[in-house]
């Protein structure tokens, strides 16, 4: 079995009086594709926010490859190899599609502020190199056709895909996707399924996927964790989860 990559152990977070996530433990192994599901308000996005350092857990610990993420800033966690997308797309709207991806290479940048003033041959070389890699990535997702448009002018589907691409540019070991299929029609969803599998295989990473669409989740995830009211109520393979009475109750009760 591959090593454990992400390890949340008994994580709790409270906002004032509200316990949004309560003693939840989740693991993701290297290269694994894991689903995180649950009714609205269950705490899925909050888990992502804790893993990426946007919120600090009130109790419990989070480790990436054995390293504690406590007190790290979001950008430091990204440096360690976690990238994410947001439930309500958060691109850099005024930057071009190309620049949206390019800035995400930041983590691997050798030349910073001073070098951009001096513009040595070393600097120009790296910039050219980054340009090639950016265009390569864009082409992979067929976004090079709009690369000079500002990101805000893209169609919704393209914005979603650009956000995933931007996350990939940081070269993560773990990719967190927050409802990537939201707002897509069924043919777009099918495309997305293929895309996610493709990403996992080509980029050699693990994926933790939050998604409401059961077809998507059941179709690609190897293991699924279920949250309800901030608690974990089930964990297992897609078929086991589908049959779990607690999960059925949670979803039926929700509707």
């Amino acid at each position: 079995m591959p090593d454990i990559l992400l390890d949340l152990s008994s994580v709790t977070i409270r906002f004032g009086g509200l316990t949004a996530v309560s003693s939840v433990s989740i693991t993701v192994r290297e290269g694994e594709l894991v689903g995180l599901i649950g009714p609205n308000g269950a705490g899925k996005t909050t888990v992502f926010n804790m893993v990426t350092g946007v919120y600090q857990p009130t109790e419990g610990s989070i480790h990436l490859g054995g390293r504690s993420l406590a007190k790290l800033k979001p950008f430091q966690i990204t440096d360690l190899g976690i990238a994410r997308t947001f439930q309500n797309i958060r691109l850099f709207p005024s930057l071009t599609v190309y620049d949206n991806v390019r800035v995400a290479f930041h983590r691997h940048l050798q030349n910073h502020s001073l070098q951009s003033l001096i513009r040595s041959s070393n600097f120009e070389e790296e910039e050219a190199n980054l340009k090639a890699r950016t265009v390569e990535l864009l082409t992979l997702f067929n976004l090079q056709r709009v690369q000079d448009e500002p990101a805000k002018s893209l169609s919704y589907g393209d914005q979603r895909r650009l956000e995933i691409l931007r996350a990939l540019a940081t070269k993560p070991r773990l990719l967190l996707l927050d409802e990537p299929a939201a707002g897509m029609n069924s043919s777009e969803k099918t495309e997305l399924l293929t895309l996610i599998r493709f990403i996992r295989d080509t980029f050699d990473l693990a994926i933790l996927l939050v998604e409401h669409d059961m077809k998507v989740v059941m179709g690609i995830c190897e293991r699924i964790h279920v949250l309800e009211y901030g608690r974990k109520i089930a964990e297992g393979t897609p078929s086991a989860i589908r049959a779990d009475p607690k999960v059925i109750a949670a979803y039926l009760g929700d509707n």
Partner: protein
Amino acid sequence: MTEFLQQLLNGISLGAIYALIALGYTMVYGVLRFINFAHSDVFMIGSYVGWFALQRFQFQQPSFLGGITVLTLDMAVCALLGVLIEKLAYKPLRNRSTLTVLITAIGVSLLIQNLAQNQKFGFGPNPKAFPPLFPSKQLQFGDLTLSTNQLAVPIVTLGLLAILYWIVHCTRTGTAMRALSFNATAASLVGINNDRIISFTFALGSSLAGAGGVLYAMNYPSIDPLMGTMPGLKAFVAAVLGGIGNLPGAALGGVLIGLVETFVSGTRLSTFRDAIAFAILIAILLFRPAGLLGKLKVEKV
């Protein structure tokens, strides 16, 4: 000791005026989330309106009734002015970036100040002496000599705060105001007319600033078109100190700033008086960004 009590009373008087202005900042911030830069100029206009009213009525003797009448009239005019500013300059900018609104507010502030300084359209650049508003009597408490004017500011302020409390907590409009500052979208969903409430908030805040203007002028007693800037900035600091959006916080913040400023004025550091408020502001934002009575909200992602 007498010296101390004297300073204490002066500080409370000054602080009460800051509190009156701060309430306007905090209320507008509550419903619209922006700093109404022109608020300090409404305060200035308030003192001029008071001056004109006192000139026009030419009371033989200042009387309490006359003073209260002038104050009320003044508050009404300032309320109107506040609504006017809101309708003309800010309403067209709903949902625009904070920056745009902030710059517009600065523009409005510059316009009012410069119109006021103009000899033809305004009051002219020279300071004017402010006539007595209330009859003044000296009171003796042991060693301590007090004038009734010194007591008038805190007393009037307390009265206004009581009315404000009643409006905000016991009337439908006040409830709507609180709902709006809690969540604007939800408020409009439950049928609150946001535009009306926003106008009402401006009216309320501006009338308090107007009262502040008259009381400040009465104590000072000289007025000029640029008089609003410094008290305005300090009152804003007071609002942040108390926790922006929080009404009791604004009142508390105002009194604290007034006290600190008065006591600093009595020391060797008096020339740094105007810098003190900003030093407090920076300290509070560093150590308690939500203010003394405010609650820190975690931004939802």
